[in-house]
């Protein structure tokens, strides 16, 4: 599915990722944990193709193709989805229209027919139930005036609509209360299948009680310093990140 080889990336000439490697097979859920500033969000943004980040070395293969060659919208159409940590507001743009535009771009790319407004409404209703969102959101402008929790649910709604092959969740749990967390996790779990993979970026172990990962990786100073099963998350929870930072500094 995805193979990251010795990836280096920087923003405004400041190096953030320094030789990161990771392999994700179909059906796997990988959790990326680590202290603030370790490069977790950068990894998510680089995979999605944010233009502010510059890849300075390494390779990323996605379904056997060079991912870094693709424009952000091509990556999206090829099935990469990023649930943003801070979803932006787009004033005046109707949420339903936005969702349908995205869906139709993806469908066109996959050789499927575009969905008209009526069929879309049926589809979106079902997905909105999944994330326990009120239909009124469809009439509002994209993320405008949404609370933090509503924005995150909206991200998961989009995930459910677009049905990506590789979902990247960037600190989706931050700022969520326990009910919202359950809803979000439920939305993600419903999409788990042998063909789909996910990378879950999180600072806390809490989310991983709901979205149980196959692998946990610890990031420090822009590279993976430790990998393990889901029990690694618990260990981190108990011991904190300081020992990781020390190890990373010692080995650097």
């Amino acid at each position, binding site marked *: 599915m995805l193979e990251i080889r010795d990836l280096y990336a920087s923003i405004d000439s400041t190096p953030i990722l320094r030789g990161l490697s990771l392999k994700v097979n179909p059906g796997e859920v990988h959790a990326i944990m680590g202290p603030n500033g370790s490069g977790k969000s950068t990894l998510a943004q680089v995979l999605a193709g*944010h233009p502010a980040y510059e890849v300075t070395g390494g390779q990323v293969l996605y379904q056997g193709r060079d991912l870094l060659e693709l424009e952000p919208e091509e990556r999206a159409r090829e099935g990469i*989805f990023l649930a943003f940590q801070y979803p932006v507001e*787009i004033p*005046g743009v109707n949420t339903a229209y936005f969702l349908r*535009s995205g869906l139709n771009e993806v469908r066109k790319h996959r050789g499927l027919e575009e969905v008209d407004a009526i069929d879309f409404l049926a589809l979106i209703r079902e997905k909105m139930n999944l994330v326990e969102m009120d239909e009124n959101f469809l009439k509002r402008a994209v993320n405008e005036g949404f609370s933090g929790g509503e924005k995150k649910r909206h991200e998961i709604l989009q995930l459910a609509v677009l049905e990506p092959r590789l979902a990247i969740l960037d600190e989706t749990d931050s700022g969520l209360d326990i009910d919202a967390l359950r809803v979000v996790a439920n939305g993600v779990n419903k999409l788990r299948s042998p063909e789909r993979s996910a990378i879950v970026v999180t600072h806390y172990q809490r989310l991983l009680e709901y979205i149980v990962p196959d692998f946990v990786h610890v990031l420090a100073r822009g590279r993976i310093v430790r990998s393990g099963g889901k029990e690694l998350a618990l260990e981190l929870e108990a011991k904190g990140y300081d020992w990781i930072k020390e190890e990373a500094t010692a080995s650097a």
Partner: protein
Amino acid sequence: MSQTTAPEIAELANREYQHGFVTDIEADSAPPGLNEDIVRLISAKKKEPDFMLEWRLRAYRHWLKMEDPTRRKPSERWAKVSYPEIDYQSLIYYSAPKQQKKLGSLDEVDPKLLATYEKLGIPLNEQKLLSGVAVDAVFDSVSVATTFKGKLAELGIVFCSFSEAVHNHPELVRQYLGSVVPYTDNFFATLNSAVFSDGSFVYIPKGVRCPMELSTYFRINAANTGQFERTLIIAAEGAYVSYLEGCTAPMRDENQLHAAVVELVALDNAQIKYSTVQNWYPGDEEGRGGIYNFVTKRGACRGRKSKISWTQVETGSAITWKYPSCLLQGDESVGEFYSVALTTNRQQADTGTKMIHLGRNTRSTIVSKGISAGRGQNTYRGQVKILKNAQGARNYTQCDSMLIGDQCGAHTFPYIEARTASAQVEHEASTSKIGEDQLFYCNQRGISTEDAVSLIVNGFCKQVMDELPMEFAVEARKLLGISLEGSVG
């Protein structure tokens, strides 16, 4: 913006104007230049009654005494636009498509002319019937086709070319012409008064609600022809009318002057909704060859509880200089101005409105959305004036600017003057840059950058688009998309 997006913007800025083509129709033109004889020629060609000729001549003589704002030193010009001097003696002041006889139906209209409209996607015939729009088409200077007249006539509505109105309703023309924009008003309005060729005339009688949107499509054609349109709309007591004005012009090299005048009069409880989509040739990337659009538009809310709304979507012209205004004379009258102005390449727009509150408890709303891309310069200039007797007057102004790229500019000049203590004036303004993060968010959902820009800009303009009549709004959205294709990434 980051380094990666700037070149994209530059690259996408190189698209060409989609409506650039010239129709070759033998023109019946006056020689270039302006003098009293030309004014007399225009009036004679139109077989106008004496009062019209006299009015034109008064305007012409006044015009000779006026100072041409285009000859002022740039530092002394109040509008934030720059352009070369205009040589009025090189312009042609009269040009009409050749017609052998009076036209009885559309079948008799020059097929080339009709084809031009087809190219623009503005079919004059059955399609308009189906969409319920009556069209008074102005091709160059003379109206060549008018539909729906019979149906409107049943209701006593007059919708015709200005020339016809002069012949058939001279008393109305005499009473209202120049009553909102006097012939002494400003350099371009005075010039228009002297030489105006044609335009539209609408009269909605007392208590009548016009059952369809009235629409005029303008198209500037024959080379070197200054266009001097004149529109007069009168809504009598309790009448309602929605009027649509839309236009697009062929690509050419010389600058073309367009100095139109629009006058609206609303009597007691009358309502006029005037919507414009303007898409004249803006010039090439260097700004060569675009239209100069110096227009005077003004409405008088003369009656109690009357209402005038201006809605405009401006994407074309090299230079736009335009301030649709409302004189709120009647007590409790309402003036509204909703505007989207988009400038790309080297376009310059200095637009806004004037709301002059004279009557008690008068209200005005101004919503202005300026979008600048490429090297476009966009200026909002608005005046809200509340006079001594306008007790309880209220104004709300919202003025938002959006910048696309880093070579464009947005400027806001609100002038507020309140001479009564009971007036309430609110002003809100914002400037935003189309965000890299917004574009990326759309991209990440599979939407291309070009579509994302169109989406974001249309969202930004929603408040104004919502004011446009349905079929016009669809056209306007497309136009914004097309205009942006040509200018941003």
